[in-house]
């Protein structure tokens, strides 16, 4: 079981990681050529009277000493005040939260489907490893993974949307939104192709983990024991091998959820889906530093949370994992 000591240590490291990230973003904002306000006002208007500019400086606390600004920055981050985007002239936090919900429309179904498909295929492949079917599947997976995500996305748009016209070319809704408002079937129709592609990628990733995990479980003595007892192969697979082989999947799955926020940059960009990924691409093209830093902080936060959840979950499920020694 997880020890309180271990959990406390883990929390300390997580806190430190977040602190390091926040420090990086703070210093980058301050080292930026031209300061935050000048750049921000530039996006509003060029010719503001000096008093107004000074007022902004005061309002943003930029006339304070650096140490005080730093403390202020950290407390602001913790309270959800993540600064203003240059390009959109809106608070970064609310922008990110809005886009995140659009990303989740793709992410949640794709992750669930991808995990299911990847686990089933990986388990089958690992159980019969070395067989013809396993090797064929394994080689296909290597080939799929070697081709860049955005290339698959471009090809899918070209074939299914442009030539076959089965799906829309991109975006999240049809032009009818102007007259009849947003309709859920229409959004789903736009989401099918990107979700299918993301499922495809998540499944191949999970396939590897599950296959390797299965292969190492098969070598364990309790499988030999089960065979010696004369249990049928199907029973061993379901009751003995699969349960144990699933353990590494917990870590992978929680991680995937955090990493994929950035991982779907390419798919969202190709499909013009208005989520965090497309926002990242746009912010990068416009060199919108506060917005990019906000996305970075969000992702750091998600990764840290995922790591904690994965640790706690896997130690709850498998009491053999004795934590507190190896960290």
């Amino acid at each position, binding site marked *: 079981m997880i020890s309180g000591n271990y959990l406390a240590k883990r929390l300390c*490291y*997580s806190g*430190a*990681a977040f602190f*390091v*990230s926040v420090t*990086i*973003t703070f210093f*980058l904002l301050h*080292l*930026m050529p031209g300061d935050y306000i000048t750049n921000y006002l530039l996006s509003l208007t060029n010719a503001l009277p000096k008093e107004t500019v000074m007022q902004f400086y005061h309002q943003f606390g930029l006339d304070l000493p650096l140490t005080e600004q730093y403390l202020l920055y950290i407390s602001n981050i913790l309270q959800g005040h993540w600064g203003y985007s240059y390009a959109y002239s809106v608070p970064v936090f609310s922008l990110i939260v809005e886009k995140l919900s659009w990303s989740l429309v793709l992410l949640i179904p794709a992750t669930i489907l991808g995990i299911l498909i990847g686990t089933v295929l990986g388990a089958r492949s690992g159980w*019969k*490893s*070395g067989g013809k079917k*396993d*090797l064929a599947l394994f080689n296909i997976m*290597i*080939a799929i*993974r*070697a*081709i*860049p*995500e*955005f*290339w698959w996305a*471009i090809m899918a748009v*070209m074939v299914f949307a*442009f030539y076959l016209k089965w799906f829309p070319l991109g975006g999240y809704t049809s032009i009818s939104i102007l007259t009849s408002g947003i309709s859920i079937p229409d959004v789903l129709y736009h989401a099918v192709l990107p979700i299918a592609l993301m499922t495809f990628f998540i499944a191949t990733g999970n396939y590897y983990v599950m296959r*390797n995990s299965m*292969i*190492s479980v*098969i*070598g364990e003595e309790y499988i030999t024991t089960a065979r010696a007892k004369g249990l049928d192969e199907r029973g061993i697979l379901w009751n003995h091998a699969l349960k144990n082989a699933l353990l590494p999947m917990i870590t992978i799955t929680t991680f995937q959820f*955090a*990493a994929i926020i*950035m991982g779907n*940059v*390419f798919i969202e*960009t*190709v499909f013009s889906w208005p989520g965090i990924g497309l926002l*990242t*691409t746009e*912010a*990068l*093209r416009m*060199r*919108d*530093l506060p917005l*990019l*830093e906000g*996305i*970075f902080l969000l*992702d*750091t936060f998600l*990764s*840290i949370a995922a*790591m904690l959840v994965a640790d706690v979950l896997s130690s709850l499920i498998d009491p053999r994992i004795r934590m507190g020694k190896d*960290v």
Partner: protein
Amino acid sequence: MSRKIILWVSVAVLCAYIAIALCAPLLTPYSPTEITGAALQSPGAGHPLGTNDLGQDIFSQLVYGARITLLFGFCSALLAVLISTSVGIVIGYYGGLLDEIVSRAIDIFMPIPMFPLLIVLTAFFSPGVLQISLLMGILGSIYGIRIIRAQVLSIAQTNFVEGARAIGASDFHIMSRHILPNVMPVVMMKFVSSSQRMLVMGVGLSFIGLWDTTTVDWGTMIQNSYTSGGMALGLWWWLLPPGIAVIGISLALALIGYSFEEKFNPRVGVNRI
């Protein structure tokens, strides 16, 4: 047997790519940024793959693009492997306080997602391709340090290291002559697999516009063609060649990587029931 054939074909493909990148000026008379004639020409004499929307020769861009794409992938991977090997060996061998400090620092840096950090740093510094690849090498080395360290810890306990120490070999001698050759298989494996990942990543990053569009590499070529509707106009020779080029090198590196892994990592080995 067929595994061996796949490995050798992959190595041959890799060598061909490197040769093309090195001999770029011999293969094509045009510079990749030179405007050579009318825009959007079809493939024909003089322009084997036609011209793009600015009238630049697509074949020249493809050939010169290999330089940037390969350079990016190999530079980042080389730096990542160099850092993780040297740091991993030193902290694994000496242990103690140094190991403690570096390991704890890695624990802290591990959950920080590298891809968005790279994007933030790029937006801040607006660096060139080579600097971005160095940055990526540094960021990408963190996880490798752990792997190498774990390997070194078990090697440092072996008899031959004890023996070398007993006859008075210096620490540097032990690390370079006894420990390094033993972690070399893992290092090679890491190098091949990270070159593949970094190369594909580099193409992806240039596709979303990480560096300025005047740099000609396969990512910007794909991006230009895709956003200017090259495929919608039926100009397949504009979009497909850079994509196929990326797939070729990435597949070759991935297959070499798996062959290595099967050879050196018994856990991935195929066991028959």
